[in-house]
């Protein structure tokens, strides 16, 4: 295959990437407008801090990116199969609890402790992913409903279990105690941050997922099911097993996210992150949906979108130095997410713009009736359907298809 700019711009990855950039750009512009409205005199310096502030806190950017990359993968991976795993929060919380439990209650050899904690987090998330998957596969219960319920069940269960455990819970401070040092994930060595090696583990996991999706028959089946469930049944794929397996993997990913977040050392020597049982659903689970959307559910895209959202959050925290409330930055992030939903539409609009120009060009060299092979006729993309009432729909939905068929040079 020739490698030229045309091929690159035509590729799917490129259009996802440009649409993500477009979404971010529009979100930032809107965020800037919000900042001008809120406090015009500080807006420029505040916006500058929002954009560049993250650079001075790179360690924190990595630390906070880790859990949302994991929940992003949990949502994105399930989404590849056409499942909407809105239960990443519950799976994440269960992962935190399992990791904390092993961290406090087990006394394994020093070096293996934190690894066991991570594995416990993985197991916790897997269990919480298995349940909606099981109900979906065998009883055809919509996974959105079950996983939302299990967000609440998981959160209240964990809060209850932690508040009732004297070893883990410090009632005077209304939070968990500090984890023993052996249970904490080794630091990356960046000063004054919680950044730890789990960030690298997360990236490796994302790459493994990418390979699974692209190179294995499990990934092939998974994507086929996501694209066209009927065809996957027709091809004899075991849909039930795949649904359960996908949800277990997705749950495990979110559970790892929870473990990575809670097992981190803090900047104060000897202390660690703590969990506060305050009956609030973990926001990182929902941030995962945004990360997955912005990353087009592609594991590699999710690494970057997770880092980006973490980066902009750090910048936003710093922008409060100029008198901006943290809510402003939440609005900016929300807008970016909002636009990322439009991003797909935008990329289609751009594609259509280019295609229309291309078609006009072809028209001038169109072949006359009588020549060429009629079998080639693209009766698929011709907006002629049996039912004229649906034709307009056909025309719009099919217009995003490449027109290579008609546009092919007749050799």
């Amino acid at each position, binding site marked *: 295959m020739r490698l030229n700019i045309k091929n690159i711009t035509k590729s799917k990855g490129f259009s996802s990437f440009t649409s993500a950039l477009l979404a971010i750009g529009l979100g930032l512009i809107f965020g800037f407008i919000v900042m001008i409205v809120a406090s015009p005199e500080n807006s420029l310096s505040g916006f500058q801090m929002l954009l560049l502030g993250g650079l001075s806190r790179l360690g924190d950017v990595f630390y906070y990116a880790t859990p949302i990359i994991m929940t992003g993968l949990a949502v994105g991976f399930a989404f590849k199969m056409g499942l909407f795993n809105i239960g990443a929060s519950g799976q994440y919380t269960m992962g935190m609890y399992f990791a904390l439990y092993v961290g406090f209650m087990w006394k394994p050899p020093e070096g293996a402790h934190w690894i066991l904690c991570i594995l416990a987090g993985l197991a916790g998330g897997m269990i919480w992913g298995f349940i909606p998957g099981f109900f979906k596969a065998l009883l055809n219960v919509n996974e959105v409903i079950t996983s939302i319920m299990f967000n609440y069940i998981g959160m209240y269960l964990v809060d209850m279990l932690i508040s009732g455990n004297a070893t883990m819970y410090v009632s005077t401070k209304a939070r968990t105690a500090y984890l023993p040092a052996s249970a904490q994930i080794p630091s990356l060595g960046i000063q004054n941050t919680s950044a730890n090696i789990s960030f690298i583990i997360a990236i490796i996991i994302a790459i493994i997922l990418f390979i699974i999706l692209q190179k294995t*028959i499990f990934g092939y089946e998974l994507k086929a099911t996501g694209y066209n469930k009927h*065809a996957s049944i027709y091809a004899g794929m075991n849909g039930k097993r795949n649904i359960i397996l996908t949800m277990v993997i997705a749950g495990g990913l979110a559970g790892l996210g929870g473990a990575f977040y809670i097992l981190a050392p803090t900047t104060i020597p000897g202390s660690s992150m703590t969990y506060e049982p305050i009956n609030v659903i973990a926001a990182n689970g929902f941030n995962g949906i945004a990360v997955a959307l912005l990353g087009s559910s592609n594991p590699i895209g999710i690494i970057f979108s997770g880092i980006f959202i973490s980066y902009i959050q750090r910048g936003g925290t710093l922008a409060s130095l100029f008198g901006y409330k943290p809510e402003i930055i939440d609005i900016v992030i929300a807008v970016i997410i909002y636009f990322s939903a439009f991003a797909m539409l935008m990329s289609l609009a751009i594609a259509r713009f280019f295609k229309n120009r291309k078609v006009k060009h072809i028209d001038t060299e169109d072949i006359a009736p009588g020549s060429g092979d009629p*079998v080639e006729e693209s009766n698929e*993309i011709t907006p*002629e359907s*049996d*039912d*004229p009432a649906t034709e307009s729909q056909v025309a719009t939905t099919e217009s995003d298809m490449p027109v290579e*068929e*008609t546009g092919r040079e007749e050799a």
Partner: protein
Amino acid sequence: MSDYIIEMLNITKEFPGIIANDNITLRLRKGEIHALLGENGAGKSTLMSILFGLYQADKGEIRKNGKTVKISNPNDANALGIGMVHQHFKLVEVFTVLENIILGVEPNKLGFLKMKEAREKVLELSEKYGLKVNPDALIEKISVGMQQRVEILKMLFRDNEILIFDEPTAVLTPQEIDELMDIMRGFKNEGKSILFITHKLNEIMAVADRCTVLWKGKCVGTVDIKDTTKEELSRMMVGRDVSFEVEKKDIEAGDVVLSVRNLTVPSKHHKKNAVNNVSFDVRAGEIVCIAGIDGNGQTEFISALTGLEKPSGGTITLCGRNITKANIRTRSKAGMSHIPEDRHKHGLVLDYTLEENMVLQRYWEPEFQNKGFIRSRNVRKYAERLIDQYDVRSAQGPVTVVRSMSGGNQQKAIIAREIDKKHELLVAVQPTRGLDIGAIEYIHKQLVATRDAGKAVLLVSFELDEVMNVSDRILVMYEGEIVGELDPKKTTVQELGLYMSGAKRNVVKEN
């Protein structure tokens, strides 16, 4: 001043990515039956939708009796006396025939319906044109042929004088087709003008006065039917010569490959069985065709045979192995290939590439995977071989996204995949649906080649030409039962039609 009641002059309509109508001119004389011929995607429906006001042309004008008119919606078309029978009927299923006919133009006084008046007018019209209907029957209870009459009466009730028929014969039995032709001739004698969209040449030769042929959105020309032949029309339609006969040498049928006994499948729509006590055999080296009108249990039967649905009774034996309860993969391994009825729903993953679709039934075989990893080099090689061997055309070869391919080539890809897979039985359900003549010819050749290679072929088709030309043996399915077994060499289309409509049956011998 003008001979023409309707003129569509230099109509151009462009959709994003495609020019559906390119400078097309169509002139309809008063009192003629004018056929509009073209393959799928040639732009027939688009052109008629423009005339009926569903679309606006980008360029060109429409004239009625020489005067330029603007048709922005179907109401405008109605006001100009233009009526249309759509291919898929636009009827309210739970309303009666009468209620459907007056829908939209209800005769009323101060908002109160004047049903008596309406009934009289409908009865008068149905008498005049020989369109017998029961005005009080519910639409859902009457046959498709009857429903079409209701659609025609709707146009007459609105006093339309230009009648558009969009592929009206696709859903009818041969007898009903003959009746429709008579009705159309009746309209012509009354001075009404008819536009008749079709791709069936026999019907055009039988009933039309003139014919306009479209090809790839362009107008090839308008011809007088009395000065032309079927062969010439088909050449105009596809741009080359096409043979109508399927070449087939006689071969002896071999061992029984598929044996179905007392198969019963429940219906999802009503309490009766969709398939009732069906038994037959298919032998190696023969093409057995299940004929019948759409909706007589063929879809349910095939679902049960291929494992998509569970039968409620009976047995299916493939190559001596009972597969009644086997899952789809097991059936596939046991030697069943399946060209599904709906290629977009079942046959292809449209967002996958051509090579990924080519291995859809075989990706798990050792040739294509090693410890769960796809052997992409082998997949590519395999796809390239199939593309080459079966002449599947696409823009980028193996890496073309299938969604961007034409319908004919999508179907060729499925056929390549299913025929190349190791199989003893090929189940082909409407393999030529929606395809142009060139592709149909190709697919028929492939089916015959499969049979000549000693495989059993089970074909389900609603196209009578296909049933008669391709098959070695015909089983007619009516209301979920096999009502007749016919030899295509010894039967006629008319006889076949009698079986299909349930008017005749012979008992299938038990093997």
